[in-house]
C-alpha cells in the first residue's frame, strides 16, 4: 500500500528532503568505506541522483568543483551511447576530460536504476582518485604537456555488467594505477554508494507512487529554475568584464590572460570567456565543465549564497556559458588539464566575482588564495614494504567580502575539502610534520581582512620519496577589491639534510619551475617547507573598525607592526 504524495509546496519539500537524504547517505557510505585519505578525510567527492535523461535531481555536493561535470557526464554518455547501453546491474566509469569530466583523476561512476525493465534514473558518484598512473606518483604532473602523461584515460566503459565484474576492464585499470589496492577499495566504496542510492530510490518508490516521485522530481527542477531566474531578474542588467593573469602554465615561465564578460539579462546570465588565452602547453588548462563549475559557483554565490534553492538541473538552466574550444577554459585533445581543475578554477571564480562586483558590490568578494597548493609524493613505505602515493593539500586564505573577513585555512572555495589530520597523515605516510600553523599578516588588509594562509614543514623519514608539486600564486598575488590590499602569495622551498638554508626547488633540485615540477627525489632527513597563498582584503583598511584591528592583534592574526602600517592602529 503506497502513501499519497501530493505535489504541493509541502509535498515537494518532503520529496526534496527525501531525495537529498539519499544522496547524503550515499556520501556517508563513501566516506566510511573508502581506502584513500582524499576520500575518507578530504571528502573530495560528491554523490548524486539523476533522472532518466541525466538531469540532476538531488546531490550531496561536498566539492563544488564538480558541479559542472555532474549534469553533463551522465547526459552526454546517454546521448553518445543511447539508453540501450545501460542494463540492470551495470556500473559505468568515466574520467575522460574531453567528454565531460573535470580532469584525469576525477572519476564518475554511474549506475542505472531500473524497476523491472523500466529505466528510472541513475545513481552517480564522482570523486578524485588519488593515483591513476601517468608520469608522476599521485597523478598530478605539473609539467605534463599532454593528457597521456597525466594518467589512464577511460571513456565511458563498464566496470560492472549485470551485477558481475567486467574483469578485463578492472585488469587494465589496476595494472595502470600505482596503488591498485587503493583503487580497488575506492571504486568499491563508490559502487557501494551507488547500490545504496539505488535501493533507497526504489524504496521511496515503494512508499509513494513511483511515478509521482518522478513527476515530483521534475517539478522540483522546474521550481529551482523559476527561483533562480527570479533571483537573476533582481540583478542590475548589463555587461560586466574582468581580466586576470595566471603566472605560468607549468612548462613555460610566461603569464597568460583569462577574460570574462558577465552579461546579466532579464531571465538569464551569460558567462562569456571569449578572449581568454588559447590553450597552453602545460596542465593549467581546464575543461569545459570546470569553467562551467566556476560559473555556477559564482552565480550561486551572488544569487543564493544560503542555498535556499534546491540544487538540481533547474539551477543550471538560466546560466549560459561560452567557453571557446581550444582555449585555456576549454581544452582540446591532447592538451593536459590536471591543474586547471585545482588551480585555474578558483581564479575563474575570483575573476567572475570581480565582474559581478561591478553590478552587486555587496555580494562579491576579493580574491581568494586561488590555489589548491597540490603536493604529491610516493615510494615504498619503510614500515610495510608496500608502494604508496598520496595527493595532499592544505588550506589557504579566502578573500574578504562586504559581510565578513575571509575564512582562514580554507581548502579553496571550489573544492571545499577537509585537511588530513596530522595523526592520520603521519600514520599513513613517512613524513613528519615539524610545524603546521596559520601565517600572521598574510591576509590582505581591508575593511574586511583576507583570510590567513597556512605553513607547514615536512621531514622525510623514509630512505627516499618521490615528490611533486603544483603550486600557484607565487609571483602574482591574490588581488584586493575596492581598496583592499593583496594577499600574501605562496612559497615552496626545500632543504637537504645537513644544510642550513631552505631554497626554492628550482635552485635546490634543478627543476625548471620553483612551484610546478615532478619527481624530485628527497632522501631521509630532507625537509620541505611551504606557505599557501592568503586571501585579499575587501575595502579600504582605514575603514576597519578599531576594535576589530585590536582583536586581530590580540589573537595573533595581525602583528602590531602591520596594524600600525596598514590600519594606522596604535596598539
Amino acid at each position, binding site marked *: 500500500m503506497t502513501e499519497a504524495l501530493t505535489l504541493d509546496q509541502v509535498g515537494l519539500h518532503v520529496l526534496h528532503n527525501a531525495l537529498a537524504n539519499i544522496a547524503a547517505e550515499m556520501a556517508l557510505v563513501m566516506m566510511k568505506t573508502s581506502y584513500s585519505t582524499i576520500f575518507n578525510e578530504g571528502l573530495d567527492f560528491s554523490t548524486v541522483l539523476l533522472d532518466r535523461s541525466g538531469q540532476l535531481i538531488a546531490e550531496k555536493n561536498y566539492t563544488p568543483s564538480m558541479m559542472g561535470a555532474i549534469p553533463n557526464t551522465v547526459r552526454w554518455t546517454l546521448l553518445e551511447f543511447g539508453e540501450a547501453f545501460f542494463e540492470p546491474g551495470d556500473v559505468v566509469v568515466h574520467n575522460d576530460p574531453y*567528454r565531460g569530466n573535470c580532469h584525469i583523476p576525477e572519476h564518475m561512476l554511474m549506475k542505472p536504476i531500473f524497476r523491472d525493465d523500466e529505466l528510472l534514473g541513475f545513481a552517480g558518484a564522482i570523486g578524485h582518485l588519488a593515483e591513476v598512473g601517468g608520469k608522476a606518483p599521485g597523478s598530478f604532473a605539473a609539467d605534463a604537456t599532454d593528457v597521456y602523461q597525466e594518467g589512464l584515460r577511460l*571513456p565511458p566503459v563498464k566496470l560492472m555488467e549485470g551485477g558481475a565484474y567486467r574483469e578485463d576492464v578492472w585488469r587494465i585499470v589496476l595494472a595502470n594505477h600505482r596503488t591498485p589496492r587503493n583503487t580497488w577499495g575506492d571504486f568499491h566504496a563508490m559502487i557501494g554508494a551507488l547500490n545504496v542510492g539505488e535501493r533507497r530510490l526504489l524504496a521511496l518508490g515503494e512508499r509513494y507512487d513511483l511515478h509521482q516521485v518522478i513527476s515530483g522530481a521534475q517539478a522540483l527542477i522546474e521550481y529551482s529554475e523559476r527561483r533562480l531566474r527570479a533571483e537573476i531578474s533582481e540583478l542590475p542588467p548589463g555587461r560586466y568584464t574582468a581580466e586576470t593573469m595566471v603566472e605560468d602554465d607549468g612548462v613555460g615561465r610566461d603569464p597568460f590572460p583569462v577574460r570574462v564578460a558577465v552579461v546579466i539579462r532579464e531571465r538569464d546570465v551569460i558567462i562569456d570567456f571569449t*578572449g581568454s588565452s588559447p590553450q597552453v602547453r602545460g596542465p593549467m588548462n581546464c575543461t569545459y565543465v570546470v569553467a562551467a563549475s566556476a560559473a555556477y559557483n559564482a552565480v550561486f554565490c551572488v544569487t543564493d549564497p544560503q542555498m535556499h534553492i534546491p540544487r538540481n538541473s533547474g539551477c543550471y538552466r538560466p546560466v*549560459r556559458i*561560452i567557453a571557446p574550444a581550444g582555449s585555456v577554459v576549454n581544452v582540446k585533445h591532447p592538451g593536459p588539464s590536471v591543474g586547471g581543475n585545482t588551480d585555474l578554477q578558483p581564479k575563474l571564480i575570483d575573476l567572475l566575482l570581480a565582474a559581478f562586483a561591478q553590478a552587486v558590490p555587496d555580494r562579491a568578494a576579493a580574491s581568494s588564495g586561488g590555489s589548491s597548493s597540490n603536493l604529491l609524493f610516493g615510494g615504498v613505505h619503510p614500515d610495510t614494504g608496500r608502494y604508496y602515493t598520496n595527493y595532499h593539500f592544505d588550506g589557504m586564505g579566502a578573500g574578504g567580502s562586504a559581510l565578513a573577513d575571509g575564512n582562514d585555512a580554507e581548502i579553496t572555495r571550489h573544492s571545499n575539502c577537509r585537511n588530513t589530520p596530522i595523526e592520520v597523515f603521519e600514520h599513513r605516510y613517512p613524513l613528519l610534520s615539524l610545524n603546521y600553523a596559520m601565517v600572521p599578516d598574510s591576509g590582505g588588509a581591508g575593511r574586511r581582512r583576507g583570510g590567513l594562509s597556512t605553513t607547514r614543514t615536512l621531514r622525510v623519514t623514509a630512505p627516499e620519496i618521490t615528490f611533486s608539486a603544483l603550486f600557484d600564486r607565487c609571483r602574482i598575488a591574490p588581488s584586493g577589491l575596492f581598496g583592499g590590499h593583496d594577499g600574501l602569495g605562496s612559497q615552496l622551498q626545500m632543504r637537504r639534510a645537513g644544510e642550513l638554508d631552505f631554497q626554492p626547488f628550482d635552485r635546490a633540485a634543478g627543476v625548471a619551475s620553483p612551484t610546478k615540477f615532478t619527481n624530485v627525489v628527497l632522501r631521509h632527513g630532507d625537509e620541505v617547507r611551504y606557505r599557501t597563498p592568503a586571501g585579499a582584503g575587501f575595502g579600504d583598511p582605514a575603514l576597519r573598525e578599531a576594535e576589530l584591528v585590536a582583536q586581530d592583534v590580540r589573537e595573533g592574526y595581525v602583528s602590531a607592526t602591520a596594524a600600525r602600517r596598514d590600519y594606522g592602529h596604535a596598539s
Partner: protein
Amino acid sequence: MTPGWRVLNRPWHDTNVSHCDVCGRLLPDRAWVFAADGRSLDSCGPDCQELYETYVGPLRELGELHAHH
C-alpha cells in the same frame, strides 16, 4: 540554408570529439546546423542558435569579440 539536425556518425574506434561553435560544449551525438555570417555553424541546438543571434552575432558586428573565437 534551413537550420536542422545533423547526426554525427562516428565509428566506435574514432576517438575524436566535436564541439559547439557557439558555446564550446561537447556535441556527443548530433549537431544543430545553422548559417550565420556567411558560414555554417555546428551547435548544441536551437538554444545556441538563439544565443548566437541575440548575443554573439551582435557583439561580433560591434567588433567586441576577440579574434580567436
